[in-house]
């Protein structure tokens, strides 16, 4: 088939138009991506408090800039990159702030989730490595950010954007790659209660840890509630049941509480972390479900002044309502 120069020109023109169409369709795709990016709202939650942000709002927040790089689980190094974004502390402040009993859970669009501790977010408690030797090296201040810019450009989808976690460090340092969550769409502040132990001392001794106490304090197990004269609801385990675990050799089987010993009389000493103590006769406590060792107040863990446990209940004086309990001791005659 013979083609004239004119026809050839026409065909070249058609090809160029086709190329433009292909390029346009690519641009259209990209631009639809951009539209999606603009519509992405970051959701931040802390209990019932919810805040959503658009990209524009995130970019208007005070930003941090610096260097960061990562070491993958296979030992490969990526970066360092110049990064810009918003501190997770700043984002946490929008829903009440991060405190030592809070963990920060970051959730990605692909179902990946990572939980950061208070020490990581606030104190920069990460391991840093030399990207060449891959050895651990000391570091100064590290900052965890929700990054939206890398090397002066928006973070692309392929780079894990538009929002991804980054840890700002010195330029010649990298951190573990699994902290650098891609495609972040949600940040959740979750309570991570500190561990504690209650020491019971009597005919036998027992340490009850937080998990065991909370499990015993569920409704249907040994959990009870008591409302004080200010209408505050305290929740915990009756003191006499805890006493019954160590009043004789039988901690929990059948009738663990020894009623016969009550007749003989003994005292129960409740000791706080700072050494303060109150001693009560067993006759005031035995079988009374309205004198409880509480671990929750109005459905929340106790405030710092009482945490982790406080003795509360009917007829107790203010002084007798010992907070920050660490030990319950049975004093036999």
């Amino acid at each position: 088939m013979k083609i004239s120069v004119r026809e050839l020109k026409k065909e070249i023109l058609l090809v160029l138009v086709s190329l433009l169409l292909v390029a346009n369709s690519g641009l259209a795709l990209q631009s639809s991506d951009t539209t999606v990016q603009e519509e992405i709202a970051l959701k931040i939650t802390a209990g019932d408090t919810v805040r959503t942000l658009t990209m524009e709002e995130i970019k208007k927040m005070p930003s941090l800039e610096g260097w960061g790089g990562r070491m993958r689980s296979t030992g490969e190094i990526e970066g360092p990159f110049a990064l810009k974004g918003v501190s997770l502390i700043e984002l946490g402040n929008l829903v009440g702030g991060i405190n030592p009993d809070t963990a920060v859970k970051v959730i990605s669009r692909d179902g990946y989730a990572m939980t950061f501790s208070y020490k990581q977010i606030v104190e920069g408690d990460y391991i840093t490595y030399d990207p060449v030797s891959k050895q651990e090296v000391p570091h100064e201040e590290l900052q965890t950010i929700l990054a939206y810019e890398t090397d002066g450009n928006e973070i692309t989808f392929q780079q894990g954007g538009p929002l991804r976690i980054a840890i700002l460090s010195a330029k010649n340092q990298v951190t573990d790659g699994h902290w650098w969550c891609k495609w972040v769409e949600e940040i959740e502040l979750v309570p991570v209660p500190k561990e504690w132990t209650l020491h019971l001392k009597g005919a036998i001794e027992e340490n009850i840890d937080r998990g065991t106490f909370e499990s015993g304090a569920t409704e249907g197990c040994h959990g009870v509630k008591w409302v004080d004269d200010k209408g505050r609801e305290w929740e915990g385990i009756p003191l006499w049941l805890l006493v019954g675990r160590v009043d004789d050799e039988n901690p929990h089987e059948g009738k663990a509480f020894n009623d016969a010993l009550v007749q003989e009389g003994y005292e129960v000493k409740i000791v706080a972390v700072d050494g303060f103590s109150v001693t009560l006769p067993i006759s005031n406590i035995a079988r009374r479900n309205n004198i409880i060792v509480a671990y929750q107040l109005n459905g929340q863990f106790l405030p710092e002044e009482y945490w982790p446990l406080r003795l509360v209940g009917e007829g107790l004086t203010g002084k007798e309502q010992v907070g920050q309990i660490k030990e319950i001791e049975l004093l036999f005659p």
Partner: protein
Amino acid sequence: MTGKLFRLIILNISLLVFIPGLLLNGYSQGQIPVKVMTAGSLLVPFRAIEEAYEETHPEIDVLIEGHGSIQVIRHVTEVPLFSGEAIADVVAVADYSLIPKMMYQTLLPGENRAYANWCLQFATNSIGLAYGSQSKYAGEINIDNWYEVLSREEVKVGIADPRFDSCGYRALMALKLAELFYEKEDILTTIIGDFSYPIKVEENDNGYTILVPEILEPERLVMRNSSVTLVFPLQSGDLDYAFEYKSVAEQHGLNFLELPPEINLSSDSYKTLCPQIKVKIAFKRFTSVNPDFDILPIIYGLTIPANASHPEEAVRLIEFILSEAGQGILQQTRQVTIHPPLVDNPENLPADLIPLVIREE
């Protein structure tokens, strides 16, 4: 005009097909890419396989990508749907049970078939202690006193983070087994030391459950994100001992103390001590994966995803891995193989692989 229109249509189709293809793929023109997603502990042997295979198959470009084993599978079943990345042709993981657990149960989008329906058990490993010649008490440590040496205050001990790496939760299982084997109650708690949120062990009718909290901040133990990244502090002397896979330790020139077979998870000998140990991780890293891990011997699994881009080429590559030459490479790189490999569902296996395997009993 019709001819012109036809040429134009063909040209447009070609442009639409090839331009994005050229943009998206980094491999050389003319070569067929075979993408292998593999566990980090298989990277050294698989890179050696890649080199040898490409020498004799210049038309093939083997692309090796390493991740933790769960992530390897997610890069087939979840991430490509979301990110548009290329589908893997071969999947190789450090815990074969993850393939039935995560791929047999998951259907391809819009189809009535699963991501996989067969798995080859093709390699094994054991867990023990890697150390350097400069490690404290290196001249003294042995199979009878290792737990006592590791308990010494001045000795720095490392494990992979059990939240992220199978080597980490297997190390916890091995420590619990050591308590039963040596009849010492506190080996696990002494060696791992304190955490701000403690690791707890519960005894039940069948055995033990080790509970790993969502946040792990060790006071004594040195934790790294994977078995591979533990190698670097061992080499520099920043760490004295680490619970490590034997193959990884030997691939990096480290000393390796073999633990007794009842402890090292190379077989089911642990059953003589305890029928069941489970590690339950409070940290749910992936919404699709329940992080409860039952004790099993360390056996590596391999499959071809149902939606592999180049399934025929994947079969050829697996044939090479199972050949005398391939097995020789794995052995040279210190990877212990199961040869012939075991298959769970031979009826689903590509026909060319059937003569190379035996059915799992």
